[in-house]
């Protein structure tokens, strides 16, 4: 009996370890070939660490490949989206959990529909509208749709946190002479930091990686975000793998860095978005 269960637990660890390698390997491979020359990638040294660390791949990706520009665009779009999403979601949640009116439960359910609506639903009408408003090929063409699609998740998370703030705080602030704005800005918003962090991270990841809208709503190369930029770059450098690897690594780096420091928070935000939806 003892032996059998020991063998079973070894088998389980072997399985877990194999799956670990399968998940780590592509990223490991990406970082190593981003530092290699074609000669190494194509034969001499396919999977080992680079013999010669070719940092010039990175400077080529940044300068010739315009990765710096794409990086900046992605950062601008993500930051603006996070700010707009948070402002709209915090305000709406305040009205949905604090203010007193009929039908607020119904409206909450209405907002939750957004968790299931696929982005496909809106792509044609939104494109046509953006075209008519001459907003294609601007940052707004991405910021507005991204904010709208992040909203439901943001309201969901904010509702959970806001319900936990005791109502007595509102009361005492009111007695001290705070109006509705004052209560919202001075009492509620400062206490919502954990929700803000969760929503911010989740929204960041969604915008940073989004491809379909970014590909269709932006055609000027100067305004491309990272996913589209990387895609274009790989089309140009089909035979030169090093700089492509560097571009891929540059685009992935912020995400991985965030994940290393905030893995628990990131995982929780994904669970929060799913379990109610």
């Amino acid at each position, binding site marked *: 009996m003892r032996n059998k269960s020991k063998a079973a637990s070894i088998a*389980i660890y072997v*399985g*877990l370890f194999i*799956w*670990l390698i399968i*998940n780590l390997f*592509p990223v490991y*491979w*990406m970082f190593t070939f981003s530092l290699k020359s074609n000669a190494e990638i194509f*034969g001499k040294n*396919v999977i080992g660490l680079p013999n010669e660390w070719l940092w010039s791949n990175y400077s080529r990706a940044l300068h010739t490949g315009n990765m710096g520009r794409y990086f900046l665009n992605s950062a601008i779009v993500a930051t603006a989206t996070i700010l707009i999403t948070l402002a709209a*979601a915090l*305000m709406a949640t*305040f*009205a949905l959990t604090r*203010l*007193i*009116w009929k039908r607020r439960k119904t409206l909450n359910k209405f*907002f939750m*529909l*957004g968790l299931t609506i*696929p982005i*496909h*639903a*809106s*792509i*044609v*009408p*939104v*494109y*046509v509208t953006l075209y008519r408003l001459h907003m294609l090929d601007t940052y707004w063409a991405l910021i*507005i*749709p991204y*904010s*709208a*699609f992040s*909203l439901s998740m943001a*309201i969901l998370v904010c509702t959970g946190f806001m319900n936990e703030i005791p109502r007595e705080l509102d*009361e005492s602030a009111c007695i001290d002479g705070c109006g*509705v704005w004052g209560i*919202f800005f001075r009492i509620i918003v400062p206490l919502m930091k954990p929700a803000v962090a969760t929503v911010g991270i989740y929204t960041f*990841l969604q915008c940073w*990686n989004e*491809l*379909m809208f970014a590909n*269709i709503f932006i055609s000027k190369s100067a305004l491309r975000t*990272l*996913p589209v930029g*990387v895609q274009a770059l*790989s089309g140009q450098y089909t035979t030169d*793998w090093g700089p*492509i690897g560097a571009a*891929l690594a540059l*685009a*992935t780096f912020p995400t991985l860095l965030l994940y290393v420091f905030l*893995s628990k928070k*990131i*995982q929780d935000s994904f*669970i929060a978005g*799913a379990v109610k939806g």
Partner: protein
Amino acid sequence: MKKQYSNKFYIALFLLPALILFCGVLIAPIGASAYFSFFDWNGIGEKTYVAFNNYKELFTSDQISFLKALRNSLLLAALSVFLQLPLALALALTLGKKIKGERLFLSVYFMPVLISTVIIGQLWIKIYDPSYGLLNVFLRSIGLADWCRPWLGKKETALAAVFVPTLWQYVGYHMLLLYAGVKSVPPELREAAMLDGATDGQVNRYIVLPYIKPIIRISVIFAVTGSLKAFDLIYVLTNGGPLQSTEVPSTIMVSMTFLSNRYGMGSTIAVLLIALCFGFALLINAVFKEEEA
């Protein structure tokens, strides 16, 4: 305070930004898509009303090959439910019973979900590369050079080659959801069963699985609707080729609308996709309810 909190002006003010965004970008476009789907329209000029012709053409035209695309995405959905989910469930159950290295395994398994699909796609293009790709290099090194082929370029292998990374990338996502469920099982339940002499397998079968059924249901819904909506990875890897063998509804929707300028037809596909997603979600909910009864 009650009086202030019931003030209609403030209620409207606080709701306004969210409502405008939400209705403008998510709700109104659904109606608009449904409306466009009855027209022949190039996006700029006059619309011509064609009743259900777009729908008819979609299901009968060999050129568009929508049915094949639909079959592909349903196949992906089936693989997702019967391969990806069981693997995710096995991982969640294993990690859920407090084993050494739990956090590390969990975090690494979830990592592919966070990496942009474009990046994952570009990496797999390199893995599948006919001459220098890892897969063919590996096959040659173990003496199976005959098996080498341009995986993404042949219509016999392209679909499988696209499905592998698609399924792989989201194993971690389902695992995380299910893991959260497994962790929420009250330890007393587990301990009581153990005291009664239940094996690990029996505990999973009779305690954990029934307990996390609501989460399994959510996972199944996500697996199916996610497969129906699949776009990014397929767009990056093959964009529907070779010879339309890896086409899915979303890739056809995008190429119809933005390459052929058939906005009416693109909207038709969008409407069908939304309907399918909601339909399957309802169906899956009904199946799970049925089982409970």
